[in-house]
């Protein structure tokens, strides 16, 4: 069965430090990959997505992610974290060419930013 794993439940990073959130997936074929962010009490905002092509994708708010097929990973990175980045981050996958079908989400990683 398809699954998405976010190994880190909670991460604390100092403001200005770099960030990497991990995501691994289990899928029969190359999926479409997404990162969403959820602030407390809010819906999900799309940070970035990978469909095909360049394996390093740029998103909003200075985030980027790299697709590594050999590792079945799609890790999210940011070179310098801001206090406003504190939120919950979700990795999600969908069948290729069916980004609009049911998304499968990881359990999420909560990011705290310390001053």
């Amino acid at each position, binding site marked *: 069965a398809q699954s998405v794993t976010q190994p880190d439940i909670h991460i604390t990073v100092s403001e200005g430090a770099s960030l990497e959130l991990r995501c691994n997936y289990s899928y029969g074929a190359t999926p479409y990959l*997404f990162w*969403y962010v959820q602030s407390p*009490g*809010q*819906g*999900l*905002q*799309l940070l970035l*997505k990978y469909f095909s092509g360049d394996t390093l994708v740029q998103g909003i708010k200075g985030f980027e992610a790299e697709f590594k097929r050999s590792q079945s990973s799609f890790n999210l990175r940011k070179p310098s974290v801001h206090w406003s980045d504190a939120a919950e981050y*979700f990795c*999600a996958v969908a069948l290729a*060419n*069916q*980004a*609009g*079908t*049911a*998304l*499968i*989400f*990881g*359990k*999420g990683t909560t990011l705290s930013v310390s001053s």
Partner: protein
Amino acid sequence: EAGVTQSPTHLIKTRGQQATLRCSPISGHTSVYWYQQALGLGLQFLLWYDEGEERNRGNFPPRFSGRQFPNYSSELNVNALELEDSALYLCASSRDRRETQYFGPGTRLLVL
């Protein structure tokens, strides 16, 4: 461009009652999806509507149902509410099945 909107923002019901949640997709989007985000269970796919038809449903009992109207807005109905139905219900829309889903702010349902 206006985003996905959902109403109400909060809903309080008692066990056994019915709840109706509403969603308006982004203009031009024909697909609407419903997800449940319950404490400890993460985000789970509930239903997918496209062009007025239910196209797929997740692993939820039949008391979770819905419909999509000609203007592509959607309703989610939950009958015979149980305490464990308390959750944030998120609606998303996409231009079609090949496109990215964009989410609304959610409706928080509390069942007492």
